């Protein structure tokens, strides 16, 4: 509800300032009213999840462009819009005003009607195609993954993941083929907007396959990180707690990150980003023993992390160990943020951006050509020097410096003897 009130207030300010701009008699006042309109539009941009646009609206539009306007108004001395002599109301097109008003109202009516009839809000935005990737945490060698007949990932080794592949939504048969031969199949329905991991896990000859959805959406709070935890152990649920949150008096962990994740199931949660020191404990509400640690792992808010607790067979010594495997995936950049707009500018919109740069260059040259005033060459005013030089200087410059010494000296008046000499 606050949104609606903010929209009404900002919209009313924008419209009122626009009307005042049209009615004001002073061009400087009109420019100031236009700045108010632009600032409220910048506020509306903020409400529309476009902070970057709001910022450039304020700096470029309300700042730079309006400074230019006011500068030209003051340069031309055109702030008074009424003509200088009052007895001159003759306008060339007197019939123009009612026609223009009627046209503008017709435009308002037509587009307004089209907007209302168009029923924009009844059509929600379509979701993007589902994304699929393969993650291998199974001890049966590298795997190839087919979704339907499409090879999504080839030769994914243990503790590795493939890139995401985009597929049309629908029902697929997933086939996971380990390098040793054989095939594990599973049917899955992919819906639009989903991000899905095809996770192979287990210690048997043939891997088990789980479909783990993951959320790549950006976190709202930039100090948090999305985590998807999958329990890839054969038996026993797991609990994750902070490493240093053990309370000896009560024999319990007081800072539990995720509790009671059943085998072959996943859970999603959001944790503060930064360094994570976690212990993985077996059992549910009353954890029994610790079997793995995840120490000094940095969680970044720009990533969505998939953590798979998997059993690894170390073939050299024929032993098993349990380890949390972490797969960090770059999350989608925040919608409308400077980062995502910059990314789009440098990838999809690189060519338009360059064309725009050329256009700006052309505008610069155009401004110079238009505003360039041809300077008439100012005639040098020939003027006789008013102060005559001393005669000796003239002679020196014409004859040479050494003549100076041979010049006859005028008889100098002998200095009077100073009275102190006596």
């Amino acid at each position, binding site marked *: 509800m606050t*949104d609606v009130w903010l929209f009404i207030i900002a919209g009313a300010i924008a419209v009122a300032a626009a009307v005042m701009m049209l009615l004001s008699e002073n061009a400087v006042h009109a420019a100031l009213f236009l700045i108010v309109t632009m600032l409220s539009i910048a506020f509306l941009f903020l409400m529309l999840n476009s902070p970057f646009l709001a910022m450039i609206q304020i700096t470029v539009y309300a700042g730079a462009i309006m400074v230019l306007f006011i500068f030209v108004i003051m340069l031309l001395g055109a702030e008074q819009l009424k003509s200088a002599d009052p007895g001159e109301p003759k306008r060339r097109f007197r019939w123009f005003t009612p026609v223009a008003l009627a046209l503008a109202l017709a435009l308002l009516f037509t587009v307004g009607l089209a907007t209302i009839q168009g029923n924009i809000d009844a059509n929600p935005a379509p979701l993007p195609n589902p994304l699929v990737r393969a993650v291998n945490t199974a001890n049966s060698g590298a795997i190839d993954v087919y979704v339907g007949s499409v090879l999504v990932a080839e030769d994914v080794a243990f503790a590795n993941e493939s890139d995401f592949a985009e597929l049309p939504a629908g029902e697929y048969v997933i086939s996971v083929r380990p390098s040793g031969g054989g095939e594990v199949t599973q049917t899955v329905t992919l819906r639009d907007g989903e991000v899905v991991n095809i996770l192979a896990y287990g210690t048997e000859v043939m891997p088990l396959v789980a479909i783990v959805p993951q959320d790549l959406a950006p976190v709202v709070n930039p100090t948090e990180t999305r985590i998807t935890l999958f329990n890839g152990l054969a038996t026993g649920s797991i609990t994750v707690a902070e490493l240093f949150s053990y309370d000896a008096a009560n024999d319990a962990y007081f800072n539990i990150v995720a509790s009671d994740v059943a085998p072959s199931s996943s859970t999603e949660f959001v944790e503060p980003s930064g360094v994570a020191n976690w212990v993985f404990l077996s059992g549910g509400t009353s954890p029994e023993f610790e079997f793995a640690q995840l120490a000094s792992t940095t969680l970044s808010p720009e990533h969505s992390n998939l953590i798979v607790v998997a059993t690894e067979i170390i073939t050299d010594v024929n032993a098993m160990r349990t380890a949390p495997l972490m797969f960090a995936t770059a999350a989608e950049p925040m919608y409308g943020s400077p980062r995502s707009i910059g990314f789009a500018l440098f990838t999809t919109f690189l060519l338009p951006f360059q064309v725009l740069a050329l256009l700006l260059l052309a505008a610069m040259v155009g401004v110079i050509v238009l505003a360039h005033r041809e300077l008439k060459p100012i005639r040098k005013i020939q003027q006789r020097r008013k102060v005559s030089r001393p005669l000796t200087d003239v002679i020196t410059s014409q004859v040479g410096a050494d003549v100076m010494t041979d010049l006859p000296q005028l008889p100098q008046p002998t200095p009077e003897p100073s009275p102190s000499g006596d």
Partner: protein
Amino acid sequence: MTVQTESYVMLSVVLFTLGAMGVLLRRNAILVFMSIELMLNAANLSLAAFAAHWGQQTGQLFVFFVITVAAAEVAVGLALIVAIFRTKRSINIDELHEMKG
């Protein structure tokens, strides 16, 4: 309850109409220019509203391009106004009815 996209589009239409009226009715070239800026702003608002509605950033990038082009356009237009003012000593667009410089 969030604000509907329709409301943004309606607001943008109202602002656009005000700008169009300014272009048609005012006789001062600088005022006409400011009204064109108002119309561009109204179009930007509806672009941003549709971008938010469809969850796609392309609309926002177009707003970015429009703002840049508007900056270039303002620079050239104001240079034109200054040049006209130099020759005519007036920026009343009613007096600009002859093509001879």
